[in-house]
């Protein structure tokens, strides 16, 4: 049970000579605070009966973190009361003003102060407050029930509360802390108990001594409880190995210096000690101490508040039995770590505070997020991959489809051409022959008949010519019969003659026999290229070359005409698409190079032995 202070009341009395008006202001402030904590009492719309609760503290909340925690629980606990609570708060400052004269004058003052405001319940927090109330209750606050907390029974010495008292005893059990410490550090040989000379300090020291007495034969015990702070710290720096330190409370040292135990004494001890420091109450944990089987002041406050609420509702103190609060094993993870203690050696049910997250725990969300992002990217990549594969597949399908179209078209052209040539032309020729025969076998027929038959024959031959031309346009018999080079030369010549465009055709190393699908592909590309040239170039000359390079045939058709923007190729018509389609179908490539005003060059290369499904025409 730690605590202490350093208190403002001396300061206050400097500013306010009597000291007490300052205290009155403090009380007022507490009332205002209480009002704000119980909003329903203000805004509830119904007027509640007023009940007065007087809270006696050994130390002010400012000077004792333990008291502060306890007071807070009391204020919170009283909030459930159906009454309008007027909360008065007095601080005994027993440590700062321990002399009898001061305490006596306090006593008189409280009696005067509350003569006209009799509290309905008094709550004492700490051993000094309880002692004071036990001694002065009958005279100063007769018949007022008292609830005590924040103290152990041992601290009351031989005083016995009467029937107006009930409350909660804190239970300090230093031996339980020692047992836990021995589990953590089994080779312990020395136990050093540190403490101060204040009233509270001495009370706690006495409790501790009593509790540890039965272990005195097993370990070497040293009580550093009569030193001034500097001397104590010096001793703590030179402790032998295999030592544990048990801290009680230091609110005042041997030199008369006062300390706030939890926030001033404890950190100094921990800094100095070369051994683990165990403590008595929960507010001493978090400053570098290991922990222990600690008293929880806030738990005491909760119990006391509950009792106060019951009393305000009419319960007599005698009807509310005194309780003992059980302590809790509580440890600081960081200190355990510092001293190499294993969590597995802690007593079952231990509370471990200030646990630092492991690298994994600290970064796991980063990793999980990272992993999720990677996973998402992988999914996206897979999706895109499949998307691309799908695209490629559909492009392949498209090429295949256009291949089929071209194939079908060529087949049909070929069929028509064959039919025209093989049958119609022949039959017409035969007809012409027959007509001529008839003409000759009618030597005596009138001249008119002869003339008519002759004209008839001419018409038939003209018709045959037209049919032949049509057949030739559909499918070049020259190409089929005489091969690619001759076919192209013939095409250039015919086209040149028809369009007035001179085409310079050269060939280099082209085999005599070229597979029909390759011949036809290049032939059609030239046909289409020449059509484009006629339509767009505005030129009267062009060059066509066909070369055998390696296992490919390279076709190039150039002009020096107007050209166009090759970047807008995608808008080009069916002609270019079909040239491209034909070349790709055989595993070749097709390119157009052109700039406005700089002429046009189309290039196509096709393997001599295409691997792909050839045009079976």
């Amino acid at each position: 049970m730690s605590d202490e202070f350093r208190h403002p009341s001396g300061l206050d009395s400097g500013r306010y000579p009597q000291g007490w008006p300052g205290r009155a202001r403090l009380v007022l402030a507490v009332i205002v605070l209480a009002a704000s904590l119980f909003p329903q009492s203000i805004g509830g719309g119904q007027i509640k009966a007023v009940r007065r609760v007087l809270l006696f503290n050994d130390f002010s909340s400012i000077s004792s973190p333990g008291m502060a925690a306890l007071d807070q629980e009391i204020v919170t606990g009283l909030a459930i009361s159906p009454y309008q609570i007027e909360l008065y708060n007095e601080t005994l400052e027993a440590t700062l003003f321990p002399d009898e004269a001061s305490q006596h004058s306090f006593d008189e003052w409280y009696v005067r102060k509350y003569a006209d405001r009799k509290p309905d319940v008094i709550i004492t927090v700490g051993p000094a407050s309880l002692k004071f109330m036990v001694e002065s209750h009958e005279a100063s606050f007769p018949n007022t029930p008292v609830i005590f907390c924040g103290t152990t029974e041992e601290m009351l010495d031989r005083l016995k509360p009467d029937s107006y008292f009930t409350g909660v005893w804190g239970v300090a059990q230093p031996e339980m802390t020692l047992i836990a410490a021995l589990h953590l550090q089994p080779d312990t040989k020395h136990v050093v108990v540190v403490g101060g000379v204040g009233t509270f300090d001495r009370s706690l020291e006495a409790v501790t001594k009593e509790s540890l007495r039965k272990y005195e034969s097993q370990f070497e015990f040293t009580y550093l409880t009569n030193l001034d702070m500097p001397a104590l710290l010096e001793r703590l720096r030179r402790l032998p190995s295999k030592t544990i330190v048990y801290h009680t409370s230091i609110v005042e040292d041997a030199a008369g210096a006062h300390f706030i135990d939890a926030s001033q004494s404890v950190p100094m001890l921990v800094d100095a000690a070369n051994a683990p420091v165990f403590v008595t109450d929960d507010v001493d944990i978090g400053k570098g101490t290991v922990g222990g089987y600690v008293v929880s002041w806030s738990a005491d406050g909760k119990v006391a508040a509950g009792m106060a609420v019951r009393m305000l509702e009419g319960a007599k103190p005698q009807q509310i039995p005194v309780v003992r609060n059980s302590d809790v094993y509580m440890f600081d993870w960081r200190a355990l770590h510092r001293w190499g203690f294993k969590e597995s050696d802690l007593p079952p049910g231990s509370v471990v505070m200030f646990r630092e997250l492991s690298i994994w725990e600290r970064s796991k969300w980063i990793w999980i997020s990272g992993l999720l992002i990677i996973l998402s990217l992988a999914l996206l990549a897979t999706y895109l991959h499949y998307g691309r594969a799908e695209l490629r597949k559909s492009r392949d399908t498209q090429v295949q489809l256009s291949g089929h179209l071209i194939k079908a078209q060529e087949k049909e052209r070929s069929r028509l051409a064959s039919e025209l040539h093989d049958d119609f032309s022949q039959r017409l020729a035969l007809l012409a022959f027959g007509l001529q025969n008839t003409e000759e076998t009618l030597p005596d027929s009138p001249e008119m008949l002869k003339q008519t038959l002759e004209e008839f024959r001419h018409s038939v031959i003209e018709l045959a010519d037209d049919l032949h031309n049509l057949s030739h346009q559909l499918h070049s018999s020259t190409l089929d019969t005489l091969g690619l080079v001759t076919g192209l030369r013939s095409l250039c010549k015919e086209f040149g003659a028809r369009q007035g465009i001179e085409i310079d055709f050269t060939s280099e190393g082209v085999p005599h026999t070229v597979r029909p699908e390759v011949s036809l592909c290049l032939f059609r590309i030239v046909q289409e290229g020449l059509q484009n040239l006629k339509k767009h170039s505005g030129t009267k000359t062009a060059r066509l070359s066909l070369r055998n390079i390696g296992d490919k045939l390279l076709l190039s058709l150039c002009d020096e005409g107007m050209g166009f923007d090759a970047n807008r190729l995608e808008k080009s018509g069916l002609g270019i698409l079909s040239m491209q389609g034909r070349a790709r179908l055989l595993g070749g490539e097709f390119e157009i190079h052109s700039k406005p005003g700089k002429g046009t060059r189309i290039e196509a290369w096709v393997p001599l032995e295409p691997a792909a499904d050839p045009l079976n025409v």
Partner: protein
Amino acid sequence: MIRPRVLLADDHVALFEAELALLSAHFDVVGTAADGAALVKEARSLCPDVIVSDISMPVLTGIEAMRKIRESGSRAQFVFLTVHREEEFVEACMEAGALGYVQKYHMKQDLMPAILAALAGQTYVSKLGSSP
């Protein structure tokens, strides 16, 4: 008088009949064929003086058949009888070694002179185009 021996090849039945009739009047038609391969075979076995052949025929074209016949050592003269009227065809036939090129539309007046010219080692080419 010994009539020149002629081998005739054409895949068009009706025209073939007309051609055969025309030729038989003046020559000894020793054999016939309806495709390029048959022509090669007949030419090798019959050793005709003149071969009158269509160009576009199944299996082998007349020009291809002619190359094979030449390869086998035949000295038969070639006269092509065809509906093709492109110069490329004429050139291709002449390059291959044919002496005559007759368009079927004009065979009535051109075939005899062409065969006779071929027998004399001279060339004869029908006027290309439709006019008689």
